[in-house]
């Protein structure tokens, strides 16, 4: 087995670098392209039941080379229309993780079933959707609601289920533990960090939606902290996300406890070449530091 091969909940990925949800995920052709560019797998855009146009522009705001703000508003063509995109990617042999979002446990379950029918190998639940029942807070920040969703989905599908958690919480370990005990097979973290950009000339928020989410290098330390805390709490595998740009970043996430990694904002500058750079670089680092494979490095920083 290659040093970069990773198995999560029985599903094998040829390397730990997956295309993050919401990046290049609108079309099957783009998913395929990320895979050809060297990704170990791809996570689809978060898909809902009905088509949503998302928010009007501006939907993104580049802050500097260290950060990006976005408020896309979960644009997606709805699960029915999206089916052909997933099928296209699968037909090309792409390892697809289907990402879904919903407002209720039932909706999450229904969408997951549809994804499973399409043939995806794993499902990622986007548990930081702003359309939530409850007291106006996000589903994913409430351990109760989060558990309900995970349980409902686990009951409905056989493929592994990953719970994607938000960093906008006072207690990452609590959320991780809730997901684990509800039956999640893995935890993905982090989604973007709640943030805002103001245009000092127009004297208003830049993003149409106002609030947005911060991604990119600036959130790497925040993602690492989440993975670190989750690793100390749960035993299911962790999918590290947030600012991964260089092979060193990836190695740090492994050391902190992540088994798989997702790459989002870094795709922007690289146009996909980042996947080869990351994989080659990580292979080098593992060898140099005496690790036989990815799994051996996972959580190593906790053992010091």
């Amino acid at each position, binding site marked *: 087995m290659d040093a970069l091969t990773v198995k999560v909940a029985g599903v094998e990925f040829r390397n730990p670098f997956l295309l993050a949800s919401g990046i290049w995920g*609108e079309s099957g052709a783009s998913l395929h392209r990320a895979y050809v560019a060297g990704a170990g797998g791809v996570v689809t855009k978060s898909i809902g039941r009905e088509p949503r*146009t998302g928010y009007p522009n501006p939907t*993104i705001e580049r802050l500097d080379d260290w950060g990006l703000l976005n408020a896309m508003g979960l644009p997606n063509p709805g699960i029915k229309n999206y089916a052909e995109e997933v099928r296209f990617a699968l037909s090309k042999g792409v390892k697809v993780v289907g990402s879904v979002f919903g407002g209720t446990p039932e909706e999450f379950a229904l969408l997951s079933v549809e994804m499973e029918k399409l043939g995806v190998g794993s499902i990622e639940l986007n548990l930081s959707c702003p359309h939530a029942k409850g007291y106006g807070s996000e589903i994913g920040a409430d351990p109760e609601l989060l558990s309900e969703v995970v349980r409902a989905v686990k009951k409905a599908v056989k493929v592994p289920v990953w719970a994607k958690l938000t960093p906008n919480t006072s207690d990452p370990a609590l959320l991780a533990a809730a997901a684990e005990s509800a039956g999640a097979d893995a935890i993905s973290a982090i989604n973007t960090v709640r943030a805002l950009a103001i245009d000092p000339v127009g004297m208003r928020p830049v993003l149409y939606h106002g609030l947005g989410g911060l991604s990119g290098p600036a959130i790497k330390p925040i993602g690492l902290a989440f993975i670190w805390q989750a690793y100390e709490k749960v035993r299911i595998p962790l999918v590290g996300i947030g600012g991964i740009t260089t092979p060193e970043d990836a190695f740090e996430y492994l050391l902190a406890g992540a088994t798989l990694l997702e790459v989002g904002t870094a795709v922007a500058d690289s146009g996909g070449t980042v996947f080869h750079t990351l994989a080659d670089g990580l292979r080098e680092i593992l060898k140099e530091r005496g690790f036989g494979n990815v799994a051996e490095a996972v959580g190593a920083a906790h053992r010091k």
Partner: protein
Amino acid sequence: MRTTVTIEEVVRETPSTVTLRFRYAPTALPGQFVMIWLPGDDEVPMSLSYVEPEPLKGVTVKVMGATSRHFNQLEKGVRVGIRGPYGNHFDLTPSNILLVAGGSGAAVLAPAAEAAHRRGSKVSVALGATTANEILFRDRFARFAEEVFLSTDDGTEGRKGFVTNLLPEILSSRKFDAVWSCGPEVMMVKTLRASEEHGVPFFGSLERQMKCAINLCDACAFGPYHVCTEGPVFDGKTLASVEDFGTFKRDASGQRVRA
């Protein structure tokens, strides 16, 4: 990174089209576009209709819906948000170029043609519009073009009908080594076909949904390509290889709709 520019000149080009000129430092190549933001309204992609060495850059906006109408009502002194330039650009090396433009398509072709002309290329132009007073940049092209062929849908100026009807004649009349086109996608499909028939390399500037413009969100997906980064200019071979071309684009939700 986003910045703010002040509109320094407003030029009414046609009843439905206006050019806005502003000072914007980043170097732009002809064919590139910017994302331009009217705070409180939308942020939209616009090709640069004026680039270096002009002291003022510019965009030329045709009324299509609410946002472009808003642009058409802007006055001198207004400040708008801008980021870019984004995307690729026209290769200026061909020495005998035919432009085929429909509607606001002339906006992106004009600065490219001027730049090619400055390098010594010969440029001929086929301009289509719905009606006579909607013909865009007729005088601008006349200043340096070998010939300017006109057509209008209603026959009020030039040949009546679609601009593509002019192509067999023009392409037979002389040897071109490039066709550059921008306009409605059906027009570009026909222009590509005509160019192929005459063995002339084709380059077309495409429009798709744009959200991020930085190769991230996939809104501009065109087959496996991203129009914001690998386009908007594609060569004929690439266009012909992508099933989307002339058949479908994606709306803001990602659903396929007719191109």
